[in-house]
């Protein structure tokens, strides 16, 4: 049983993660790199003559993680732009996808659901609502360089919102009694009434609003694809790996 769960989770996460890593390389990563030009631009750069500005920014990107870059980040290690950065990002995405796959499997096993492509994709879509859409209502996906509230506060709010939304989805879809289903509404609203941590809107950022908006939309789509693809492969492999080794009523 453990072998089956881990084999399915690892394989499903690997495949879904690879697909999404490929999409990221052509969608979100170029926007992140573009935004980092604004994030890392030294205060002097924007005043440079417009004619030479484009080239000046290009130099800043490539020196972004090198010795001459902005002093706060210069000491931190970061993967070099290009293949190394793509490899680290892809590995992290695959790791996240394996994590999502294991969480989906855990939910379906605990619920006693039959694990098929269809049911796992519905669980995946619910995962996206809980961990993607609901936290994004309070904390829009951020491109680098935006001004944001304290990281720990945002992470705590994010986790609280994801957990409460997941509980609300469960109550609404699986609640036997109408009062439990009704309870889902305050549970889903509570983190938003409590409010996500924000800084004053007039805080300065150099990242253009258009770039930030495009990133928010694209990254939500990317996360939706990751959840649904993970669900699909979880269902697909669960039906094909180790199905006979487990007892027949074990689904």
């Amino acid at each position, binding site marked *: 049983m453990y072998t089956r769960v881990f084999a399915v989770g690892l394989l499903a996460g690997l495949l879904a993660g690879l697909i999404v890593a490929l999409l*990221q390389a052509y969608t979100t*990563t170029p926007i992140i790199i573009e935004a980092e030009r604004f994030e890392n631009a030294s205060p002097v750069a924007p005043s440079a003559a417009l004619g030479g500005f484009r080239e000046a920014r290009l130099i800043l990107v490539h020196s972004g993680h090198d010795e001459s870059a902005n002093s706060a980040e210069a000491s931190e290690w970061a993967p070099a732009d290009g293949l190394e950065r793509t490899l680290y990002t892809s590995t992290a995405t695959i790791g996240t996808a394996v994590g999502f796959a294991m969480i989906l499997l855990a939910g379906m096993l605990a619920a006693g659901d039959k694990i098929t492509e269809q049911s796992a994709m519905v669980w995946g879509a619910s995962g996206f609502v809980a961990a993607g859409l609901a936290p994004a209502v309070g904390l829009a996906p951020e491109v680098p360089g935006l001004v944001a509230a304290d990281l720990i506060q945002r992470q705590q709010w994010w986790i609280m919102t994801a957990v409460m939304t997941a509980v609300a989805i469960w109550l609404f879809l699986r609640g036997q009694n109408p009062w439990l289903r009704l309870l889902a509404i305050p549970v889903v609203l509570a983190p938003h009434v409590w409010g996500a941590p924000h800084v004053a809107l007039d805080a300065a950022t150099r990242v253009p609003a258009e770039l930030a908006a495009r990133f928010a939309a694209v990254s939500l789509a990317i996360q939706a694809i990751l959840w649904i693809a993970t669900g699909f492969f979880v269902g697909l492999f669960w039906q094909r790996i180790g199905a006979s080794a487990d007892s027949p009523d*074990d689904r």
Partner: protein
Amino acid sequence: MTTAVTHSQQRADVRVVALVAFAFGAALVFTTGFAHSAMLHSAAHDTRHSLSFPCH
């Protein structure tokens, strides 16, 4: 009677497997999405932004 007992034992086993799977999955997501280590943050930086985890 015996089948009922076996069945409930199987359900209990499945719940333990589910708990282990959840712990493993949550730990992985925490590592890639939330851990504060500077190295993990740098390595997973683009993934964190791209999957709308809070970052920076």
